[in-house]
């Protein structure tokens, strides 16, 4: 049985790879074809969709029957948002993200390259 997290990821992948909107039924068919034999119920897809809607990743068009869903932003934009947060270039950086390497000044990068060549030669 797939976890809720995996299902959310599969649903978002399906929405990101579509230009327009999809209904819950269409989404289930895509999940079935991409996941092979595992059956996913439409109700499960609807649950996942409303969770994603609450988190602000999915928009729902309620004017049509059945409801149509689309992703709020593209995959690349989401990744760029994350990177802005990580690299400290987001306007509001509160999260104490412990990065392996923080910002490096050009001078420091030069020192590092010198140290690096020394380490390789010895």
């Amino acid at each position: 049985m797939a976890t809720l997290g995996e299902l959310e990821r599969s649903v978002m992948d399906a929405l990101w790879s579509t230009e327009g909107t999809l209904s819950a039924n269409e989404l289930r068919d895509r999940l079935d074809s991409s996941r092979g034999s595992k059956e996913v119920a439409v109700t499960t897809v609807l649950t996942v969709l409303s969770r994603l809607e609450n988190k602000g990743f999915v928009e729902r068009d309620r004017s049509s029957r059945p409801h149509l869903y689309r992703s709020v932003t593209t995959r690349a934009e989401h990744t760029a948002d994350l990177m802005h947060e990580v690299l400290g270039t987001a306007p509001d950086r509160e999260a104490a993200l412990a990065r392996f390497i923080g910002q490096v000044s050009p001078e420091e990068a030069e020192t590092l390259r010198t140290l690096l060549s020394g380490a390789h030669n010895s």
Partner: protein
Amino acid sequence: MFAASVVLALLALTLAWPVPLVLARAAWPSRAPGTALVLWQSIALAGGLSMIGSLVTYGLIPFGNNLIAGAFEFTSHLFAGTLPPGANFTQMFALCLAVLLTGHLLLSLLLTLVRSEKQRSRHLSLVNLLSAPLEGSPRTRVLDHPSPVAYCLPGTSSSVTVLSEGLVALLDESQLRAVIAHENAHLAQQHHLVLIAFKSWHSALPWFPIANRAENAVALLVEMLADDQARRATDDRTLATAIALVGSGAATDPTAPELSWANRGEIEPGLVGPRVARLLTQQHPLSSSARGTVLGAATALLVIPTVLLVLI
């Protein structure tokens, strides 16, 4: 009471200015980062305690001969709406200042905790949507981005280490293992809690030059502690090379978002160089007697203001 308040004020001043300055410049912390981290926390706590304690003991002088008697007397006067004979404006001002300062520091800590938790959980749910677990390590995720970055997202039940495609492409297998061990050490030792405490102290007292210095010193010590754990997974040179590769790669990466001028001033100076130098020069760890002395001093820093407050 007056003597105690003067001694506490002097202690607060010493801990606010000369002591952090000397410690930030000292060379030994890189040889015993864990011990130094304890000392920094003790300085910050003792500094706050003596600053607020000095104001309280001074303000309570007309109410009694010691803190406990004074506090009882103060409460009954507060409910009666009266002031004891001999009470003056300066003392009442000191009491108000103590209340405001305590509230300000606690609220700021709470606010920083709530904000970073909110941002962290949103960040985590995005990471979960955007990336699949790395094969073999379910708590490691790989993000599809060319900038070489690695970081960890601490969580109560779901801590995650995130690597970028750029980082995986830049490093070889043993270097990658060193990076993952480094991030896992941050998570296992709960470093984010110390970082958040010092960040909130800094944002509560932005005009206080030492707060910035303390935050940077603590950030560097936490990195060194994680490096020490990573050294157990690989050798020193591999780890140093990984740090240097990622550091110089990040600086020259054309795909990295531009730093805005507002953030430029906040770049922590020298977080990377000292770490690499420390790994390559084979420093000896601080002797256990020296570490014992530092830990004793850290304990004394907390005991002295407490004794002054309660007993005198």
